[in-house]
């Protein structure tokens, strides 16, 4: 069983790398969709286990919520935002893509070593799922700071959120339901506000390059 979760965590990590190697907004949204679907799949498998073993239905509800929110609703919202703005491809990076991908790889190594240094979490051997999922969060942060356009940063934020969520789910085998709900509602509000803001930035400045906002400073 843990073999399946190891594989799923590796695949989620892989989508983080694919996201990093992409530069088209359409591909961002598609990859995010795949990542969320993988998370929903892991929640579903855990949920089936929870129903059979303990009779808890909350993880199944979480799985359905992930499918509705992260696989269908939020990517759709991003598509709508993206249709309203000018650019299609991310052009100016702080570093070029191969270097960014290699940096993400070194983040995985860094996570591994920092987890192995903190001995209290791991009883005999490090959990590969933990390494992979925490790496997703780290790569999401790197994604966020290396993309200059607002829509890339939103995707980065969502990836960080995905990473934290899947870390919590794998390490606790299902958080309390109220915590899950809180996270979802927070994320939904954040994405909606960001979507509106991207629109506003685009209308006011005719571009969503966040660097230009710096010109507002006196």
């Amino acid at each position, binding site marked *: 069983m843990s*073999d399946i979760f190891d594989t799923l965590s590796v*695949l989620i990590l892989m989508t983080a790398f694919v996201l990093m190697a992409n530069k088209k907004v359409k591909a961002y949204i598609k990859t995010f969709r795949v990542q969320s679907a993988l998370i929903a799949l892991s929640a579903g498998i855990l949920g089936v286990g929870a129903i059979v073993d303990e009779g808890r239905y909350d993880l199944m509800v979480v799985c359905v919520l992930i499918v509705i929110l992260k696989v269908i609703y939020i990517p759709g919202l991003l598509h709508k935002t993206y249709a309203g703005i000018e650019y299609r491809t991310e052009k100016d990076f702080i570093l070029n893509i*191969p270097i960014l991908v*290699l940096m993400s790889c070194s983040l995985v190594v860094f996570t591994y070593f920092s987890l192995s240094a903190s001995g209290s979490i791991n009883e005999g051997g490090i959990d590969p799922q933990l390494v992979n999922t925490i790496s997703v969060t780290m790569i999401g942060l790197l994604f966020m700071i290396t993309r200059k356009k607002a829509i890339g940063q939103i995707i980065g934020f969502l990836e960080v959120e995905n990473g934290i969520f899947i870390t919590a789910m794998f390490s606790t085998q299902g958080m309390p339901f109220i915590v899950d709900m809180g996270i979802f509602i927070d994320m939904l509000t954040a994405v909606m506000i960001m979507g509106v803001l991207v629109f506003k930035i685009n209308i006011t400045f005719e571009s969503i390059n966040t660097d230009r906002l710096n010109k507002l400073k006196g």
Partner: protein
Amino acid sequence: MNYLIYIVLQIIVIIVFAPLINGVIRKIKALSQKRKGAPVFQMYFDLHKLFRKTTVVSETSSWIFKAAPLVFFSTAVTAALLVPVSTIIPQPLTLPGDFIVMVSVLALGRFFMMLAGLDTGSTFGGMGSSREALISSLIEPSIMVSLFTIALITGSTSLSKILFVVNNSETRLPLQVSILVFLALLLIIIAETARIPVDDPSTHLELTMVHEAMILEYSGRHLALMEYGAAVKQLTFITLLVNILLPLDGMISRAGIAAILLSLLFYAAKVLIAAVLIALIEINSVKLKLFSIPNLAALAFILSFVAFLQYFVLGGNHV
């Protein structure tokens, strides 16, 4: 005496059926475009035609131009002999570290092809050679890392030993490692055999061609050897992919002729699956521009490196 039979069997399987894989991939592509397409055996007809045609050699070229097709074809055949098609058939060539030999032998063939591209002094040849050098230097690290990952897990650098360990039903590769290495090798095959996201095999458009640009000056027998060598190399890589990562031979418990035939049947089915997969990738993607290829290569490298890391994270235990 027995070994002679096995060598012949290995040669027949890889070298005789290599052009067929190209035919299958082309047929699937044609069907996806609602065309009837050339027959599956078209490449055999082409090779037959080319072998009978006059060979034209440029006056300004040196011996390298004439030697390169022979070197390229013979290195491809050598590499094909190193990758076993089935664990039931004992290997004609087994030596420790033979996948390193395989990669370096293929690199030798590619080196001669690049030299031949430069030799005639035509602009396209030089351009193709420099592009090929770029792509191969980007893709080679990921071949080595992914094969070394498997070697570390199985505890051997000999391909036939690796296959034996992988096919034993008690000592499978961990699932996540095999998925990652599978994806990495798929990207490697696409780059090595000049398929669509990296290079378009069916066009002679000056701006984009890589493989075709290098062999542009060849004709007749030489061209046939080049094309045939490329097909053999492609089937060698596909064999490596399917035999390491889709092991089925462990299910055969008997020995003898029937077991060999059954394992070859499995092998054919696996190769067909891989060919369909490659064709699907070709259909569903567009050719990348040359400067986006490093991104793809970085992804292939990362896939193999993360597989290596998974082995490391899992505690480095042998299977």
